């Protein structure tokens, strides 16, 4: 997969899991994972919680708002932006493709 690379994207546009990738809960790993051809990345804890919300309806800002409501008083913005930009750089997520 090489070095994780951050790639910025529109924070107000809906994002989705990219084609050929699958996000799911993995009981044997006790965490969420991303599956892709011949590989798997574990997304424990907050990374799984963030990715769970990448569903083609929410934008990055929408996800932050939702998480801040759920965990009041915690400044999550930097972590969410970091994680999702790396996820985008790895090709796991993308702006929602037009129908």
């Amino acid at each position: 997969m090489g070095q994780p690379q951050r790639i910025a994207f529109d924070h107000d546009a809906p994002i989705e899991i990219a084609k050929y990738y699958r996000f799911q809960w993995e009981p044997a790993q006790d965490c969420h994972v991303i599956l892709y051809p011949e590989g798997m990345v574990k997304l424990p804890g907050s990374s799984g919680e963030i990715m769970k919300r990448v569903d083609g309806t929410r934008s990055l800002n929408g996800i932050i708002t939702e998480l801040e409501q759920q965990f009041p008083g915690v400044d999550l913005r930097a972590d969410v932006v970091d994680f999702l930009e790396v996820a985008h750089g790895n090709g796991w997520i993308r702006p929602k493709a037009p129908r």
Partner: protein
Amino acid sequence: METAGSDPKRPGNPLWLLAEITYKCPLHCVFCYNPTDYTSYGPELNTDEWLKVLREGRELGCTQLGFSGGEPLMRDDLEVLIAEARKLGYYTNLITSGVGLTEKRIAAFKEGGLDHIQLSFQDSTREMNDWLSSTKTFELKKRVAELIQQYDYPMVFNCVLHRHNIDHTQQILEMAEQLGAEYVELANTQYYAWAFENRDQLLPSRDQLQRAEEVTNKFRERVGDKMKVYFVVPDYHSNRPKACMNGWGSLFVTVTSDGVVLPCHEARMLPGLTFPNVREHDLKWIWYDSPGFNAYRGDAWMQEPCRTCPEKEKDFGGCRCQAYMLTGDARNADPVCDLSPFHHLITEAVEKADRPTLPPNVKPIVFRDDRNSRLLSAQKADTTPVT
């Protein structure tokens, strides 16, 4: 709940399940890694038995599933197996030559949730030297490639390279490009099974390998991000062994057509080990407790130079099967390693390959087919000591 790593001596769970669902194959590839004695195996698992294997594999924690063979399309219950695999949560990969892939079947695979198809190029005819220009092969691959695109799968091509086609690397890459490949794996033959029988015929020279790598690098520069090209060098041209299967019984589990379970698809050749069958045991016991899967875990089995080698954590002493095939003892270092006292066996083979032409007395090529498999099985039975 049981979690991997809770006991330092207990291995983690497997992540990869390779289902070699049949050894039937319409092709006769001389570099095939299937066992040469496949015709002596028991009857194929039926649909229900495979469904049980899939469930047990998933319970163990496997996430990647490869349907392979032989040619997996030769099984007419592949649709059922794919649909169940997807329901269970596997990422399902079909490893195929494309022979037998119709629109009806690919539509059913898509509907069932197949995630990924890897299409291989190979010489499907006995006219080895002509295979690249064979319109029959190209037309078939073209039709299959169109189906793959139509059904929105990534275009993943694999081509096995050897002495007789490696000089055509340029044409192979151009053909892949023409067919819309996104990923191309140029996998040099590794010398097991049928390929080992044919090694002197198939091993490329150092010059050939170097030229193929140059061609590949130039091609990569030209196509940029459009295509990802992987070039896998043959073990014989290395001086350190591969970390075979990422360690014995560490990530991979192979279930063969007749239900025998192996830590890698070649391990059945190793003497003195009995590998269990899913008809008699569940995968959990097989993975964690069977003697076969524990035989080469960890490093207690290692001999010198591996035992005290600082690189043993990195390559696990290489491949047990290669060590056995070349040195007669699976506990030896993989002779690919230049620290192995048997490394000369590798360099001698490469020196032979460096000769401009094959000697007239070179062993004739053996095609992978039922007749030759029966002959090789009989030979093996004759030379296996009775214990």
